[in-house]
């Protein structure tokens, strides 16, 4: 069983400006949670905080026996250079970094694993293609294949389906379901409420401060959605000043 991730009064932000406020709660081990909320509500910031790349301004994250290197993370706008001369298979093989480290060589069966991961996301035979020739959807499949190889107990995805075609979205949601069946802890930032309702048992609704955290059916109520919208409109004028004085 995977340890739960517990947030204690967590505040995260940049340059002293908080983006996530006083968030407390638990991501149960093996749970599958959608994080939703208006733009600028701190969803991406929360994921970055969970990976350990962003240090809390206040409060803390309790990861149990999990190390941050066991958190696989797919950022929203990966800083990937799409014109870089690298093949699809090499890109996928990077998922084995934890086992190979910086210097270890790839064994034959590890290349085989990489090929299997590629097949699992529906890109069989794309091994030698340059990544520059892939469509947006195909490239997202490649990144999912890399996540498959990373084989981490915790998987964090930041809006993985934005500007991705419907067919790819269905296939990749399928991959996420398989991870859920293997009882990994999965946390996904999403915009599409239909996807949340149909596939995600748990939901965290954020608007800088938590609005609701629990079973999806109980969180996705018209009142909560209304509240989130109101809060997001209210920030623009007064946000930064009062928040900093709180810290």
């Amino acid at each position: 069983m995977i340890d739960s991730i517990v947030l204690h009064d967590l505040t995260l932000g940049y340059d002293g400006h908080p983006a996530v406020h006083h968030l407390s709660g638990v991501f149960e081990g093996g749970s599958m949670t959608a994080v939703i909320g208006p733009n600028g509500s701190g969803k991406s910031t929360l994921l970055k905080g969970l990976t350990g790349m962003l240090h809390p301004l206040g409060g803390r994250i309790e990861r149990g026996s999990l190390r941050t290197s066991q958190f696989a993370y797919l950022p929203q706008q990966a800083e990937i250079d799409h014109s870089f001369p690298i093949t699809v298979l090499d890109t996928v093989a990077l998922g084995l970094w934890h086992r190979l480290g910086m210097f270890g060589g790839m064994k034959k069966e590890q290349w085989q694993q990489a090929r299997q991961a590629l097949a699992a996301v529906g890109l069989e035979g794309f091994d030698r293609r340059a990544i520059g020739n892939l469509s947006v959807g195909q490239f997202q499949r490649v990144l999912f294949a890399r996540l498959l190889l990373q084989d981490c107990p915790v998987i964090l995805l930041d809006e993985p389906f934005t500007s991705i075609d419907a067919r790819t979205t269905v296939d990749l949601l399928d991959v996420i379901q398989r991870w859920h069946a293997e009882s990994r802890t999965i946390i996904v930032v999403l915009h599409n409420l239909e996807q949340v309702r149909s596939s995600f048992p748990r939901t965290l609704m954020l608007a800088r401060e938590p609005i609701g955290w629990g079973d999806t059916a109980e969180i996705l109520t018209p009142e909560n959605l209304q509240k989130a919208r109101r809060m997001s409109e209210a920030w623009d004028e007064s946000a930064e000043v009062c928040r900093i004085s709180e810290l």
Partner: protein
Amino acid sequence: MNYLFNLFLAPFQDFIFMRHALVACMALALGCGPVGVLLVLKRMSLVGDALSHAVLPGVAVGFLISGLSLYAMTLGGIVAGLAVALVAGAVARFTLLREDASFAAIYLMSLAMGVLIVSLRGSNIDLIHVLFGTILAVDDADLVLVASITCVTLFTLAIIYRPLIVECFDPGYLRSVGGWGAAMHFIFLILVVLNLVAGFRALGTLMAVGLMMLPAASSRFWAREAWSMALVAVVIAMLSGYTGLLLSYHVNLPSGPSIILTAGLYYIFSVIFGVHGSIYSRRKIGLHLGG
């Protein structure tokens, strides 16, 4: 047959300085090829240019202290190059200025200082030697230095190849798996400085970067993976060295600019006729789509 022999081989058979120059070019090509390719892939081509200028004051101080001494000038060049890389890197990291701007600012200061120091002592001839190199006076000590730097470069690249490539391609991923992005970046900058210093005796501080950048930029049109690009770049750099030396011998031109201009010709050829993404290949694809 005899004519061809005289054209392509005789200069190297007859003159030891031509053989020295050729070996120096081959060794430089081996190191500069892969380093240049990584500079291109990291989108740091102009940083390489800036560093090549930045090496000058160090070389000049060495020159001021002990005349045209190989070791003093080399050491000075390495120290100055690393200092500029460090300061520019620090400015970029800790202020709002980006890396390209901070490199430009510091290398301009460095270049001006270098020219000033050289002009304090010595005639203009010496200045021209330092700026543009004297490949035809490359001696055994120079060759040992160039070969050593090439060996260090190739071994280091072989060891840090993977994190270096990932740092170019997907820095966010390297961070998320806890890789040593900043350390790799710095080791790489050291390699750039070392190779520029290796090139300065043969090609001069201003021309050294040419053998790094032109073949690397050309290689993008012929290869689709980083390692094969590096191979292509090495071959182009070697060819440029060879043909450039021949040109300089037969037409009686200065060797440094001849070599770099030859590399420039290969670059223009690649831009027009290369296999991947060149003018010609794009046009061909366009015709297919049109038809």
